[in-house]
């Protein structure tokens, strides 16, 4: 018979043990399809990828696959190319994000004021976003090529280059090629988000400030910036993670060269995995990048929380 314990089970529960188990299982059965999908699509590959980092997996060696423990990580610690890639990643990420942000904000401010043909101008300005990244990478690589592209000749005419050479083949300047392409390609992202935020600012605030005596710069400082700040912070932080992982343009334009001067961590992973076919080592690098980006993402979450509680 039923036991009357402190567990709070209702008196007179006459269900059989089978029925109780079924009742307990019911919610899990309802959510099973989603859980199975998540496990199969996200967790299994992730676990597999993480496990590669501790195994010797080289596609060209049929006898590889053995567990090697922390060997890859020890190798990484002494890998000068990896350290160079880390520095390049910082350089690539922050200059791309900052330039994208500044130009995107300027574009959004310009597009926010009424003028004739604004709808068309908006559509045109958002066009780069629709171009596949590989295609824009190829385009920019050609434009930097003095044989087919105009840019080296322009830079030479402006006196910036001493001769019309390809900046992508000069280790000192090569990183600027993918950065310029990335800025061109990513401006619309910031322009769209900033424009949306700008359009949410009530117009009478500007009018009230104008009557209060605020000039254009003061109005920007005391109304536009505070209103845009939360959007700015979140879009910059999200974009940073995204660009740090974004190797398409570098792979297409310089393939990490010359002399690894444009190699970022993401492109280094790609090189290790698909050119050297060393999946184990590539997975180890990816794991390090994952941890770094996770730490950075936690920063986003904390920042957002503090910003939300302040408002």
């Amino acid at each position, binding site marked *: 018979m039923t036991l009357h314990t402190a567990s709070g089970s209702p008196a007179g529960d006459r269900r059989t043990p089978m029925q109780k188990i079924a009742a307990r299982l019911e919610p899990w059965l309802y959510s099973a399809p989603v859980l199975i999908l998540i496990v199969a699509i996200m967790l299994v590959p992730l676990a597999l990828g993480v496990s590669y980092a501790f195994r010797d997996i080289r596609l060209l060696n049929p006898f590889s696959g053995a567990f090697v423990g922390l060997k890859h990580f020890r190798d990484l610690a002494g890998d000068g190319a990896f350290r160079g890639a880390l520095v390049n990643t910082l350089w690539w990420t922050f200059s791309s994000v900052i330039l994208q942000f500044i130009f995107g904000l300027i574009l959004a401010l310009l597009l926010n004021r009424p003028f004739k043909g604004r709808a068309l101008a908006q559509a045109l300005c958002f066009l780069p976003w629709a171009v596949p990244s590989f295609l824009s990478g190829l385009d920019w690589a050609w434009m930097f090529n003095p044989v087919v592209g105009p840019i080296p000749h322009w830079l030479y005419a402006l006196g910036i280059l001493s001769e019309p050479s390809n900046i992508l083949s000069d280790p000192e300047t090569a990183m600027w090629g993918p950065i310029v392409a990335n800025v061109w390609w990513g401006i619309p992202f910031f322009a769209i988000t900033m424009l949306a935020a700008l359009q949410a600012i*009530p117009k*009478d*605030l500007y*009018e*009230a*400030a*104008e*009557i*209060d*005596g*605020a*000039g254009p710069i*003061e109005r920007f400082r*005391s*109304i536009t910036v*505070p*209103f845009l700040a939360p959007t700015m912070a979140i879009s910059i932080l999200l974009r940073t993670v995204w660009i740090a992982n974004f190797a398409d343009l570098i792979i297409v334009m310089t393939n990490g060269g010359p002399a690894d001067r444009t190699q970022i961590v993401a492109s280094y992973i790609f090189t290790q995995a698909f050119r050297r076919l060393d999946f184990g080592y590539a997975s180890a690098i990816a794991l390090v990048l994952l941890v770094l980006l996770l730490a950075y993402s936690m920063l986003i979450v904390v920042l957002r929380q503090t910003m939300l509680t302040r*408002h």
Partner: protein
Amino acid sequence: MASITIEAITKTFGTVPVLNDIDLSIADGEFVVLVGPSGCGKSTLLRMIAGLEDITAGEIRIDDRRINEVAPKDRDIAMVFQSYALYPHMTVADNMSYSLKLRKTAKERIAEAVGAAAGKLGLDPLLARRPKALSGGQRQRVAMGRAIVRHPKAFLFDEPLSNLDARLREQMRAEIKRLHKSIGATSVYVTHDQIEAMTLADRIVAMHGGIIQQVGNPLDLYDRPANLFVAGFIGSPAMNFVEGHRRAGAIETDDGSKIAIPDGVQLAEGQAVTVGIRPEHVRIVAGPEAGSYAARVDLVEPTGFGTIVHVRLLGQDLKIYTLERGIAAVGQPLHIALDGARLHVFDRETTNRIG
């Protein structure tokens, strides 16, 4: 404090005319209310005084200084917006002192001015709060405080009470009036609510279709509306209108009833007119008397203080406003007399008042 002169002001948006040849002069210390239905151009006129809207043609002067090309911040005016337009990231004190800070006023002077304004408006306990933490009425007060700390030459109000509920609106209305009495600054106030216009104004400017219909003190507009628009707009419940023609020494309405022509009204035989009579000037009489009409009660609307009785009479739905209770039930026959001295006669073609 200052006088405002508006001369032959015209405004078009593209090809759409909004204001047409407006002339108005506002005396020093006067409280002028621009009233009219939405789209009549009253807000546009106010925004032109503020400098937020370009002037297509004409001239606006403050104290005899032409301000057409003067930037809003140099006109020395303050404006209260319908949405209040408070800076959401600033505290109440910062909102109020913002304009003084921009004008590089000394810190002590700012504190003094903000303190005085806050005291006047009962904002002292709220100074450290942000607008988000305030109620509608409190925000309204902050918007007013922001305007008065500066001691501007003129106050402009753009429907400042429209976003408040009825009770709060009544309260703020009285407060604005009291404030104007104590500060005495020239004020221009835009509203679509004729009660606000009547209660607040030294002078009402009734506007319709981009044209000034009548300018006068509130009771003038109520007693002697210049045309059909003003007659219908001012007063609640609205004036009754009966259409008719002058025939055989009287006004014959479309259903054949006769209304005696009021003294001082000259009409040509057969002239088409509209007769206006306010519901409060229609009397319910005990029995038939000279010039009275028989009618039947159609609808009764008690408002608490008085009662609005609808009857079918003179070919239309005629409203009667009476302070006596229980005088009429639906379907009951009534005798009705019009107060001859309170009749308004308008020419139906020009819509202008006759006599």
